[in-house]
């Protein structure tokens, strides 16, 4: 067998061009993205992304775990929005089981999800601005992000790898004072977004680095499978939360920000508006939080309360059975998609009727969005590539899985 190079290589196609290797440890590639750029002076002729440095085989690992053991794995896929991954996975399994979730659990899930979206967008905004040279925004964003991480820690015990949702409900009720802290944050946050916008939106340098840069048309974006703010920045008015609602999103009122230009600034504008819409949803969720249980009434699937285990024989038996044998899921297959901060995140789960999933596949929004990168950057300057990578909000954990 001929010797194969473990990584792809690119050959110049013209005499005057050369190959530039960018990444995988370049700070602006957000992790381990490697780009092979064919350049003619400062102009990019061709881009070839090289991915897979973070591939951990999560899909294969899932096949060897019980359904409830997969939840912590999903945190590690898109590590900037662990709760969105949790939600998408548990919704898919609940759809397989035909399980009905009590309203309070649904509202809590929406609340946590929108906080996650803000958290993820804050990391995006900070690092994206940092890549382009605006350092201050990063510090401001991480100040507010810290508040959200403290809320996550209070509720789930973890700052980042939360694993807060369970099949059939929520792991444990939020502690006393959680809602007051969340309300305080929701009250403060809109003025923080004003601060970020003061620094960037009308800043002429920011405008020059983002307006008209890395354009993509709506047709190209759809054909390349781009979703989320990358698609909405090109004028396609589509948001899964509004258009194909899940987990009770139909009870919330919010606008879907759309921009027409399709450039880096349009995607920036969409995401910043989304910050404001998300905090409005958080506010609504806090105001209208229903009372009731946070777990579905399905003893064979949902772990019993700790108190009950100490007093009731049956609860103890169910707990033992679920932990040691898992729970069987009826045969079938589902595809559940949710709107993650980056676009359409989908879980395709195939069950063969046993307690372990036969196949779990994650549709990574970033993987499809990355395909749009060459279209955005070819023929443009190298410095614009950095702006374009930031604008599609890339998370390599999700791409490589």
């Amino acid at each position, binding site marked *: 067998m001929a010797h194969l190079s473990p990584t792809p290589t690119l050959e110049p196609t013209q005499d005057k061009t050369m190959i530039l290797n960018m990444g995988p440890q370049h700070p602006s590639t957000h992790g381990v993205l490697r780009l092979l750029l064919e350049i003619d002076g400062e102009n990019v002729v061709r881009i070839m992304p090289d991915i*897979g440095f973070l591939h951990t085989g999560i899909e*294969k690992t899932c096949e060897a775990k019980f359904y409830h053991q997969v939840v912590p794995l999903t945190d590690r896929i898109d590590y900037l929005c662990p709760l969105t991954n949790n939600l998408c996975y548990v919704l898919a399994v609940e*759809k397989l089981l035909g399980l009905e979730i009590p309203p309070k659990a649904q509202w809590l899930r929406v609340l946590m999800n929108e906080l996650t979206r803000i958290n993820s967008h804050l990391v995006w905004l900070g690092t994206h601005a940092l890549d382009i040279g605006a350092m201050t925004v990063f510090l401001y964003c991480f100040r507010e992000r810290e508040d959200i991480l403290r809320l996550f820690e209070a509720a789930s015990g973890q700052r980042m790898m939360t694993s807060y949702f369970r099949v059939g409900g929520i792991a444990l009720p939020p502690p006393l004072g959680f809602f007051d802290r969340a309300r305080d944050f929701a009250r403060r946050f809109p003025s923080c977004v004003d601060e970020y916008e003061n620094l960037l939106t009308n800043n002429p340098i920011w405008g020059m680095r983002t307006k008209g840069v890395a354009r993509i048309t709506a047709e190209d974006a759809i*054909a390349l499978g781009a979703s989320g703010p990358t698609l909405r920045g090109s004028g396609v008015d589509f948001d899964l939360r509004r258009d194909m609602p899940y987990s009770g999103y139909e009870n919330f009122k919010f606008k879907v920000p759309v921009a027409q230009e399709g450039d880096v600034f349009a995607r920036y504008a969409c995401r910043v508006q989304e910050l404001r819409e998300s905090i409005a949803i958080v506010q609504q969720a806090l105001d209208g939080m229903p009372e009731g249980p946070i777990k579905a009434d399905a003893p064979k699937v949902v772990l019993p309360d700790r108190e009950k285990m100490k007093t009731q024989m049956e609860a103890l038996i169910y707990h033992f059975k679920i932990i040691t044998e898992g729970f069987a899921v009826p045969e079938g297959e589902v595809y559940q998609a949710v709107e993650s901060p980056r676009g359409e995140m989908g879980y395709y789960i195939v069950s063969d009727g046993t307690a372990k999933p036969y196949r779990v596949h994650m549709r990574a929004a970033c*993987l499809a969005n990355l*395909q749009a990168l060459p279209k955005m950057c070819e023929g443009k300057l190298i410095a614009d590539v950095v702006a374009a990578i930031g604008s599609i909000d890339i998370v390599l954990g999700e791409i490589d899985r």
Partner: protein
Amino acid sequence: MALAPAITDLEQLKGHPAVTRLFAWNPRAVEAAKFDRDEMTVVIERSAIREACVLLRDDHDCPFNFLSDVTCVDRFPSEPRFEVVYHLLSIPKKERIRLKVLLAGESAVVDSVMPVWPAANYFEREVFDLFGVRFTGHPYLRRLLMPEDWEGHPLRKDYPVEGYR
């Protein structure tokens, strides 16, 4: 909430617009269909997949213009071994449909849908990488996630979870 039983009778499912459309075009292209848990699955004959995709993409009433995902399921040791699964989304109509192609283990080859949606590029490369299913007409069918000199296809069921040691 009890699960409604899956509907697999083709005659009953002909009311679904996408199935109607596929039947009107070529009845032999549709091998089977299933409506389960509010999701529509249509099994397409292997040689017809690309044209079926074009048909659904350009449909006037309900254009499935967005390719959400392409993936694969390995049914080893039963035959046909591989199911290549396409998830289509209609952005204007907010509908989803799942297409499937069944492939035998020794001839795991299917037409690439990259000419229909360029989005299929990475998805098909990933399926090739992890399952060893080949897509004819794909311009750059190389491994995507694993190193290029890797041996075997990790998501196949006969590949051990902890890898070959």
